[in-house]
């Protein structure tokens, strides 16, 4: 095997995996605070279309990312308002956010399907994704604010009793998650694809959710999980290229089946999941009594 091919494969893996890292680390922070947001896929799509349309209209990459992140903040704030203030069911609200996001993004992007743009080089974002993971890791384990966020996810009642503002901390964590999902989406429509297509995230949001479980809620492991995952996906593409004779659809199934397998392997150790999952994940917080 020649060295160029290997470098090529590594490059492809890095480029293809980056949105998973962004979305995964964002969701991880949200879940660490005790909130499960199943709206990742919806926020990614809205982030992707916002960036794309902004770029087409203004021709500015900077504005594209800024608006995309604002869309992520707005989408996640909507979610936060429902689950934190109105104490709605987190699972159902997350699903609503995804359904809403799928509809909203295809509505906004309807007239932009197939519009050509100049893609941006992905490498800054690849580097940024690593930096963010290291930052989150540092934040969690080396700062008091990070400790407080983990504590809120562990027991909101105890955190409240100590005087920490559970809702404020969760709001910030949810918004961070939303921003990261939007960033993942904008990366896909502007760097990775680069184009807009309905439902273009193709389940990556859900895979990011699975990554958090794979990582057993530890930031560094998001990177490991995402890259194992990206590796497997790219490998199947290459097997295909090397002439393994199977219909394309079966290769395309690989990411989804791999996700299920990984979930099965990780979750079958009940104790590990119990010890690493934030103890108040999905539980609503009501401070009235």
């Amino acid at each position, binding site marked *: 095997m020649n060295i160029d091919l290997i470098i090529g494969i590594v490059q492809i893996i890095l480029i293809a995996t980056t949105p998973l890292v962004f979305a995964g680390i964002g969701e991880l922070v949200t879940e660490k605070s005790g909130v499960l947001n199943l709206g990742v896929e919806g926020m990614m799509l809205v982030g992707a279309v916002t960036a794309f349309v902004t770029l087409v209209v203004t021709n500015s990459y900077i504005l594209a990312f800024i608006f995309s992140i604002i869309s992520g903040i707005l989408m996640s704030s909507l979610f936060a308002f429902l689950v934190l203030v109105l104490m709605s069911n987190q699972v159902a609200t997350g699903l609503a956010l995804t359904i809403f996001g799928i509809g909203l993004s295809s509505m906004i992007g309807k007239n932009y399907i197939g519009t050509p743009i100049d893609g941006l080089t992905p490498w800054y974002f690849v580097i940024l994704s690593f930096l963010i993971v290291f930052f989150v890791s540092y934040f969690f384990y080396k700062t008091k604010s990070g400790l*407080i966020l983990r504590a809120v996810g562990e027991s909101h009642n105890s955190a409240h009793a100590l*005087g920490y503002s559970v809702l404020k901390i969760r709001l910030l964590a949810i918004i961070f998650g939303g921003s990261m999902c939007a960033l993942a989406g904008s990366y896909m429509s502007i760097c990775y694809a680069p184009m807009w297509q309905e439902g273009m995230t193709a389940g990556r949001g859900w895979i990011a959710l699975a990554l958090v479980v794979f990582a057993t809620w530890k930031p560094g492991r998001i990177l490991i999980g995402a890259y194992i995952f990206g590796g497997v996906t790219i490998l199947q593409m290459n097997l295909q290229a090397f002439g393994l004779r199977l219909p394309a659809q079966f290769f395309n199934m690989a990411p989804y089946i791999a996700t299920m397998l990984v979930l099965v392997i990780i979750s079958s150790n009940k104790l590990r999941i119990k010890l690493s999952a934030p103890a108040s994940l999905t539980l609503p917080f009501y401070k009235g009594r």
Partner: protein
Amino acid sequence: MNKHFVEFNKVTKEFPRVIANDDVSFSIKKSSVHALLGENGAGKSTLVKVLYGLLAPDSGSISFNGNILNISSPSEARATGIGMVFQHFSLFESLTVRDNLILGIDKNISYNDLKNQLQDISSKYNLPLDLDAPITSLSAGEKQRVEIVRILLQDPQLLIMDEPTSVLTPQEVKNLFVTLNALVDEGRTILYITHKLEEVITLCDEVTIMRSGKVIDSCSTENQTAKSLATKMLGEKLEELKTDYSHIKNTKSLSAKNISCSFNDPFFTDLKDISFEVNVGEIYGIAGVAGNGQSELMDILVGENTLIDSGELIFNNINIESFNPQKRRDLSIAFVPENRLGHSAVPELTLSENILLSQFPKNKFSKNGILNHNFIDNHAKKVIDTFNVVTPGSDAKASSLSGGNLQKFVIGREISSKPKLLIISHPTWGIDAGAEHAIRESLIELSQNGTSIIVLSQDLDELIEITHRISVIFEGKLSEPFNTKDVDITKLGLLMGGKNE
């Protein structure tokens, strides 16, 4: 000023179903231990939550150190000099002791400073700690130490202790009292919440007694006796219950033989070689501090956990260790687990529906899988009437009942089937005095009619009041049984703390 270090002035706090604090006024002297005495549900916890900034009063005010207290959060309370140790610890189970301590400190503190302060506090008050241990690995007494140290790091002037001894062994209680006295000697003030009369007499200087949200009396403990305090706390005098051994038959109802069960999970206590026997008509008590394997043992007795490593459970000559709860009910065994909401009853369902949770062979709740709603409703009404459950009707949701009434309903449901064996955990946990008395009375009556009863409880007084024999569970091991009428309390206390001799 010193006399009125803390002053409650007409504090009122109302909840949808109950007035928790009704015009509460009293004051606390500086450098004293002041007891807040009352039954469960008397309004003590609500009052201290108001004092600590967790709840806002509907009306009235509190003055602290001469100033009107105007706080809306615990961190403001701490900044003012008020600290609180909760009954159910406000610790973060999966975090280490160190992380838990850091979380309790408002100012940023370096690890070295923390260590120095900690050494000071540890040696001064006899509160040793292992900083790197996760909270899950600690005993109840150690967890309480973490809580107390966390509060002391803030140097509070007033320390609120909410039922601090409910999870401690008698020996740990002694140590706690030494610590508290040392704190008072330094000029700190302690507000000590309890429903245990002896503690008020031994530890406290003054006492305020609350009943149904109102202050009944506030006085020095000097001329009080346990009896005089009890009268104030309970109001009308309740008849003392008598234990009678004469009806117990010499035939075995249930015998547990060498039951062992390991879980490989830090949240569970492994059970080691548990054996005991209960005779027909006997009430057998299992005492112990929470977290020593009671709930694990209960799961095995009920049949919610049938995966034991070894051992036998024999009821009327039938091996039942592999039977699920329904199969055990078919043999006329009834169960009441500790937790009402979500275990022995479903809060979201009506009382009628809750009747269906335990079906005994005599009941005709269903035929071929199809429910007989009329029969179920009538049965629910019968239970409500017979056991004086206060509720608008059988179609009320379980969550709308008070703890005592729901517990009466659950116990009524179980014993209306006239079971041969009743297994019950913490029968009177967290309920008012009236319901408590009624429940204990009905258990005694049941045993006199030939039902064998196993009671698991942390409340030693309760076990001594109603059981015939008693044994102690500690770290998953069960002691030999003692006859309750001539048991030595000190011995039980030592066993609860894991000391044999």
